[in-house]
């Protein structure tokens, strides 16, 4: 614990927390844009995916600053362990716990992504969906934990983040960005076979003749 005469660590913690939330909001939006194959000029699709990955790493850096400065600060009593184990903090137990939970979920996503080449594609994908759980918990954490120092711009910021991700999710569910018209590689519903109604039924199994046809070579 570091005791300083100025609350610089406290400000650092809050500032980096906000920046990391903003960055993760961008990461979520870019992730959804990757999945919905958004891209072309000026940003090709692979670049959207690459931006998503790099922004995520940057967000993790700011998140590390956020939790590091929080734990180091003696102004509030939050241990390093409380960062990853929900419920250990004495200061605002529930709100911090939310943050810890969001970090735990995020850790699963980040670690599997770093080890992506070594794990199965379906395992990676299933765990990656956890980000849809992690991000709202992080947002809730940000909302609840700042209630003692309420700035109106902070509210606007949070609402803005929520709006961005909500819009992206709605886009994902309702839009059809794939060239064929499907959202992911899901083909459209199967068409009906256009056959007139008086259809001949499938030939019934019949008895077979006991003589096979002799080959033409034999001159039959």
């Amino acid at each position, binding site marked *: 614990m570091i005791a300083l005469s100025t609350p610089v660590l406290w400000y650092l913690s809050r500032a980096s927390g906000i920046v990391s939330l903003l960055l993760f909001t961008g990461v979520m939006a870019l992730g959804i844009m990757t999945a919905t194959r958004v891209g072309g000029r000026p940003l090709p699709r692979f670049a959207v995916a690459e931006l998503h990955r790099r922004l995520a790493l940057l967000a993790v850096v700011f998140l590390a600053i956020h939790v590091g400065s929080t734990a180091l600060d003696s102004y509030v009593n939050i241990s390093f362990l409380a960062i990853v184990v929900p419920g250990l903090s004495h200061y605002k137990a529930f709100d911090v716990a939310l943050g810890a939970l969001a970090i735990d979920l995020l850790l699963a996503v980040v670690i599997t992504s770093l080890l992506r080449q070594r794990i199965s*594609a379906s395992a990676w994908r299933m765990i990656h969906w956890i980000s849809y759980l992690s991000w709202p918990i992080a947002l809730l954490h940000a909302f609840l934990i700042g209630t003692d120092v309420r700035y109106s711009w902070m509210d606007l910021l949070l609402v803005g983040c929520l709006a961005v991700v909500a819009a992206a999710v709605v886009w994902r569910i309702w839009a059809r960005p794939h060239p064929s018209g499907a959202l992911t590689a899901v083909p459209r519903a199967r068409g009906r076979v256009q056959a007139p109604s008086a259809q001949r039924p499938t030939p019934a199994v019949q008895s077979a003749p006991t003589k096979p046809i002799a080959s033409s070579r034999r001159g039959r």
Partner: protein
Amino acid sequence: MAVRLRVDPIRCDGFGHCAELAPELIALDEWGYPILTPEPLDATGRSLASTVIAQCPRKALFLETLERSEHLSRARR
């Protein structure tokens, strides 16, 4: 040892990153799915190939070693 680029069509979901990164090797059909060049890769091709293989969101691309330059036939059931 000749190699060529191949795709697992079941894993492929038509993201199209490969065609953006390596248009010399990969084109997209009208539905967004990759058409790969069947020729063995030269040195430039190989380095492009390793990039697209790493970048594919579904890990659908892979390298295939060619024993002889034979066309692999499918025995269907």
